[in-house]
């Protein structure tokens, strides 16, 4: 009896460890090579990389679903909405091909009919970022002749090197600040210098706004570029961030100048990542919040999961490393006390969350919004746009959000509202009925903790904000009368924060992407290479370089570092792996 009990205990299942059939019983391991805490896009991707590389990997996700910011819900039958991310910017990611996500069902759907709308219903201009091949097109948009020439030349040179430029910017591990690599020596800057005809070193200090002014870009294109930056990462007014802020805009128009969504919504991408990981042997467990990262003698050796978890084992050991797909601000609470100096914890506390808090509105509507002033773009009706792309208004909104620390209350400050109509190009999103669509409208608001009226202020203002957004949409698409709105689902930064512990501050990009908190400084200089002061503990979350967006970039970059740190990783380099050509190893860098 006792012997049998032992067998059961050893097996950890309460069932006799005797094989029935030959179905291949998985060993009941509570130890893995790598444990990944968090099942967001970056956590799933690193799990897929490591599993495909041949390591045993376990992902522990706190929520009932994997995906983090890449989730979908169907709050009313037949309509799938994305509470968080909906645009896919990662078409240039090495991970897409290295992990062969298409094999696991991944498909994308470009949203045609993209343009930038001027204020109050005005037509604005088509967003042809990558399709401008004549001076006339620039002139038509309102550039003066000199700017048009400059713009065209830049555009043409960039086009040829865009994938390279973006890979150098996003898919390359940041350099260690101690190596003292000059700013102009960074690969993305080098490439930019080569493609930008009027380069001068002062541009390194510029904000995107200053650079756009210099380029003579007229509204609404100008505002479009600015909101693209604000909505995708580096704020257009942050000094020294012109190149990265320009880069995010290019991510968006990577595929024929059109924004792209995954077929079925952003969660489909998370599924493909998870399926790749599982197919390669990774274990993924949901409802398993990590309550502590276990550290002994400065070395991470595993994690403890919450007692409520469905897992039988509450301590999961990591033979090689623990990887945190979590906000850097979660570190001090989670890692065994005494692992960090008070100084270090203070630095983490000081990190700003400003810049990335979005009020996401999803409307189910029973009619396609027809943009009166712009019946068609390239022969397609408008499906994605930025409303009220008007720089003066946008500057007011920026002041509301960052300086006055409030959401906009003046309808004239509702600027740069992102708009996409799901279902026009991907019917799997709107199976509930013909002629019905899901609209997403995103507005910038302050981070909950930063709001002058307290963290719930935006939630209290939900109805007013929604009403203004609807009215604003009607200025462009007059057919969208109140009766066309079937249902409304709002996700505020506060809601994000509650649903996902890693969305500290409800910040979609994790934390501010300013020069002091970017690249080799992100999130702190000592953490920039994804390592932490604890051996065997790594960061793999959007709070590391290159920041927010589902780009599979943080994990790709982290693989370079693991390659350096673990002999087990470097000695088994598989043939599908290729590193960034600009990667500098620690050994090389130190020289």
């Amino acid at each position, binding site marked *: 009896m006792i012997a049998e009990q032992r067998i059961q205990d050893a097996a950890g*299942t*309460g*069932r006799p460890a005797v094989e*029935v*059939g030959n*179905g291949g019983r*998985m060993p*009941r391991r509570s130890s893995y090579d790598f444990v990944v805490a968090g099942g967001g896009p970056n956590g799933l991707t690193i799990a897929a990389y490591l599993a495909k590389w041949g390591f045993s990997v376990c992902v522990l996700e706190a*929520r*009932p679903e994997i995906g983090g910011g890449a989730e*979908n*819900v*169907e*709050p*009313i*039958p*037949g309509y*799938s909405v994305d*509470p968080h991310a909906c645009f896919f910017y990662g078409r240039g990611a090495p991970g*897409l*091909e*290295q992990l*062969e*996500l*298409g*094999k*696991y*069902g*991944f*498909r*994308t759907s470009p949203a045609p009919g993209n343009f930038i709308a001027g204020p109050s219903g005005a037509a604005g201009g088509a967003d042809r970022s990558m399709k401008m091949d004549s001076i006339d097109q620039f002139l038509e948009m309102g550039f003066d002749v000199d700017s048009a020439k400059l713009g065209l030349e830049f555009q043409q040179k960039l086009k040829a090197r865009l994938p390279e430029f973006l890979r150098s910017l996003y898919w390359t591990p940041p350099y260690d600040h101690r190596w003292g690599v000059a700013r102009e020596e960074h690969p993305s800057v080098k490439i930019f210098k080569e493609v930008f005809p009027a380069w001068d070193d002062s541009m390194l200090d510029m904000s995107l706004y200053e650079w756009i002014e210099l380029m003579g870009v007229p509204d609404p294109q100008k505002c479009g570029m600015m909101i693209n930056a604000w909505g995708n990462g580096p704020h257009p007014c942050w000094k020294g961030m012109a190149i990265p802020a320009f880069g995010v805009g290019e991510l968006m128009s990577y595929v024929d100048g059109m924004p792209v969504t995954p*077929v*079925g*919504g952003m*969660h*489909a991408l998370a*599924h493909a990542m998870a*399926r790749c990981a*599982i*197919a390669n*042997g990774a*274990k*993924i*467990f*949901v*409802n*398993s919040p990590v309550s502590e990262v276990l550290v002994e003698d400065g070395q991470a050796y595993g994690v403890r999961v919450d007692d*409520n978890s*469905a897992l*039988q084992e509450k301590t999961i050991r990591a033979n090689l490393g623990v990887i945190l797909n979590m906000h850097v601000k979660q570190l001090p609470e989670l890692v065994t006390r005494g692992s960090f100096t008070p100084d270090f914890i203070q630095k983490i506390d000081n990190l700003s969350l400003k810049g990335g808090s979005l009020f996401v509105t999803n409307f189910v509507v029973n009619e396609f919004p027809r943009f009166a002033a712009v019946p068609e773009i390239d022969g397609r009706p408008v499906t994605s746009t930025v409303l009220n792309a008007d720089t003066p208004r946008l500057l007011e909104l920026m002041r509301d959000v960052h300086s006055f620390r409030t959401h906009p209350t003046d309808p004239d400050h509702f600027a740069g509202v992102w708009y996409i109509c799901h279902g026009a190009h991907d*019917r*799997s999103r709107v*199976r*509930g009925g013909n002629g019905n669509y899901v609209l997403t409208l995103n507005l910038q608001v302050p981070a909950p903790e930063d709001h002058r009226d307290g963290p719930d202020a935006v939630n209290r203002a939900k109805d007013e904000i929604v009403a203004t957004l609807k009215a604003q949409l009607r200025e462009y698409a007059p057919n969208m009368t109140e009766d066309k709105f079937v249902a409304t*689902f709002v*996700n505020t930064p506060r*809601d994000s924060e*509650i*649903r996902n512990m890693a969305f500290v501050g409800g910040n979609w990009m994790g934390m501010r992407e300013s020069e002091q908190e970017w690249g080799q400084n992100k999130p702190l200089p000592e953490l920039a290479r994804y390592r932490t002061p604890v051996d065997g503990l790594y960061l793999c979350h959007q709070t590391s370089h290159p920041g927010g967006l589902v780009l599979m970039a943080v994990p790709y970059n982290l693989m370079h570092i693991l390659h350096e740190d673990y002999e087990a990783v470097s000695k088994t380099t598989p043939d*599908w792996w290729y590193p960034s050509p600009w990667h500098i190893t620690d050994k090389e860098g130190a020289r």
Partner: protein
Amino acid sequence: MPQVEFPTQSETDIVVIGAGPNGLIAAAYLTAAGFEVTVVERRYEIGGGLATEEILFPHHYANTHASYHFMVDYLPPISDFHLEGEGLRFHKPHGQMGAVVGDDYVYLTNKLEDSRDYLARFGLDQADVFGNLVQRFTKIVEDILAPATYLPPDPPVDLIEALGRTQVGEDMLEVSEQSALELLDSYPLADSIKATLLYMACQWGVMPTESGMGFIVPLLLTRGMEKACIYGGSHRLASALARVILQRGGLIIDNAEVTEITTEDGRANGVVLEDGQAITARVGVLSSLDPKTTFVKLMDPAAVPAEVAQAAEGWAFDKWSLLSVFFALDRKPTFKANDANGMIGLPDPFMTLLGFDSTDDVVSFLTGIERGEITKVAGHFTCESAFDPFLSQKQGEHVAFFQMPAPYDFDWEGEQDRIVAEVIALLDTHFEGFAASVLDTVVENPKTIEQRLPNMVRGSIKHGDYNPLQMGYNRPNTECSSTKTPIEGLYLCGASVFPGGMVIGGPGYNAARMVCADTETKFPFDYPLNVKRYLATYFPEGKE
């Protein structure tokens, strides 16, 4: 060329249509048997009836469809693939049913003697009658109904001969002849107890007065006292099965509606998806959809034999569906103690039955529902987050639902608000301050069930009615009830094939075995012990 997007042309051994419990179970076994399997699912999430979703958006999850798991003790994939433990955990509440019938409170647990102790309040004889009933029914279920779930059905003549071999078998045959009501009427039970048992037996779609359906009573009563919830939500079972499939090289493609089952020379050889992707199946296609969809909607009429097409056209969908009202609550509902019976302080039962006065009341209510009328609001209630803390993502807040049989043909648009108000009023009379605690309400009526899962035509939670003409060897028809269809390479594996609906896994398991048998592939697992025992007892010479 690395695959960045799912290809427009691909090839696999087997395509499974639909990633509900049955499709996933079939796929899991077939991957284990060595086949290359691709499961294609129309929705953005797999699981079909195994859905745990944030429909009380934001922050509150609910099991939109299946919540009560009756067969976890028997489901072969759970033990064959050692699913339990790996993030999958079943929780069987001790209190299984608390029924308020008139002024009585009938409390049933998953321990016979505890139930009998509570029932003895209605008289010691009641406890004895109940004990005898449960003992008799348990034998029928353990010896026959449970094992037979995981075997293809037998023609009636063969079955009668086989069951004739034992007393339990004879008893099973006798029980089967009767209607649920007749069977229960044969026991001298207090009316409130009888009403409770009748509801348990019939709630999922059986008319109490329909002869030939008596076997449903032992099945749903004994299993109805062994219901489990899945910790973290019913969807976890789907995830666990998906993991088995993926680990063994299978593929699961979501957001992918099958619009056509292709055939060549009379053989099913693949599917086409809504966006035009074609997946070729070298070995076969398994459809977990109902016969009408499979044979009429998805196939070229020329490829379907006339009698199969005709039977499919005549397929009867469920006689009623369900209405579920989901709630997000700011606190856990507290049952108002029923002093009259002294039933104070009992733990919350998994299922609470509310709104009925008597057995007659249950019968007339269900008769009304079948006619398309909702004569009153009565049904069952569960506070799911009381058993599963993960469903509410906000501390201290809870999710619960009220559910009742409901007709498809009904003026839902006009009447739903009134009915929901009545539901809340009913709950308010039984739970302290219920109405005031409601934060959010989401209603799923038979039409919205069909919108989420169009394969549940007319809200058919079992993909087709339970009546003697559509049960056993007749489900969905004599040609297809073994899961194999007259079309080479095409199999049925969903709730519309024997033994039927709910999360019982029989259709999926049987279909996987059938494919293996047809292709002379060794099925990678032995039959479970109870099935072996059943075969040895009733089919000592082997089964066709």
